[in-house]
C-alpha cells in the first residue's frame, strides 16, 4: 500500500458526476471540479497508463458505489506535476487502491479558486 507523496509524473483522475462541472461547448473541465471537498482536500485516483475503459472500470469498482446514485458524467485527467506547480501537494490516501488527495489548498477561498483554475487549465476531460 503506497503512502506519502505521489510522484510528479503520475496521472491524477478526478471523477465528475455533475454536468455543470464541465463545458459541453468545448469539452473542457471547469475549475470548480477541482475545488476541495469539505475536508479541505480534493479526492482523486492515480490512473497512470490506464486507458479509457480501465479508468471507467476504476470508477465502477471503487468510486461510483459511494456516490449516492449519481451517474458518472466523465473524468478529468491532470498530471501530478501541475498540482505541484500550483503549490499543492498530492498524497496517497488508500484505501481504496490508488486513491490520493490533492491537499495544501490555501485558506483564502479566492486563492483556492485560483489554484483550481491552474489545475483545470492543464486537465484533459473525457466523457464517460
Amino acid at each position, binding site marked *: 500500500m503506497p503512502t506519502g507523496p505521489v510522484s510528479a509524473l503520475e496521472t491524477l483522475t478526478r471523477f465528475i458526476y455533475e454536468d455543470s462541472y464541465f*463545458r459541453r461547448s468545448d469539452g473542457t473541465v471547469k475549475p470548480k471540479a477541482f475545488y476541495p*471537498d469539505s475536508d479541505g482536500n480534493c479526492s482523486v485516483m492515480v490512473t497512470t497508463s490506464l486507458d479509457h475503459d480501465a479508468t471507467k472500470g476504476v470508477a465502477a469498482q471503487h468510486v461510483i458505489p459511494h456516490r449516492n446514485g449519481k451517474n458518472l458524467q466523465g473524468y478529468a485527467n491532470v498530471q501530478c506535476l501541475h498540482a505541484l506547480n500550483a503549490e499543492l501537494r498530492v498524497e496517497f490516501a488508500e484505501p481504496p487502491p490508488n486513491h490520493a488527495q490533492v491537499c495544501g489548498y490555501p485558506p*483564502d477561498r*479566492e486563492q483556492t479558486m485560483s489554484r483550481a483554475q491552474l489545475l483545470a487549465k492543464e486537465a484533459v476531460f473525457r466523457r464517460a
Partner: protein
Amino acid sequence: MSYAVADALPPSVPVNTRRGASDESVRLDQAYVDALGPILSIVELRSRIERARAQFIALLGEYASPGWDGYDAMPVSADAVDRAFHFAVSLSPALSSADVSANAYGDVEFEWYVRPDKILTLSIGPGGRFFYAGLNGIDRYTGSGYIAGPPPRLLRDVRDVLSE
C-alpha cells in the same frame, strides 16, 4: 445544468427602411421609432430580467440536496441566489455572457470563459460575500469582498479577461 446570465445583445429597435415612401411618411416612421424605442427597450429589459429571475430560481431546485455533485457539495442558499440575481441584472449587456451555476460551497458561481487560460470565476454567497479568481495567460487575479453593486475592480478584471 448551468445558464447564461442573459442575452448577450442589448435590446434593439428594428431598422426602418424607405422602400420608396414619401419624405413625410419616412418622418412619421421615424417619429414612431423615436417614441416607441424607449418603451420597447424597457419591455425587452423587463423580459430579460424575468428570464434571469426564472433561471436563478431554478438554481435553488437543481442544487438543493447536500452532495449534489456526487461529493459533499453544500446546497445552494436562497440568500446567495437572491444576491447573485441582483448582481446579474446590474451587469451591462457586454458582461452578461457569464455562465451561472452553483459550486460546492453552496454559492452561486459566475464564469466568464474564453478558453482555459482566459477565465474569471466569481462566487457569490450568503450575505453578498464574494470571492473571485481570474486567469489571463500568465496573469492571475484574485479578490474578495461584499456585493453592493458591481465592484469596479472585479468588472475591470472581467473586461481584461474577455478582451483579446
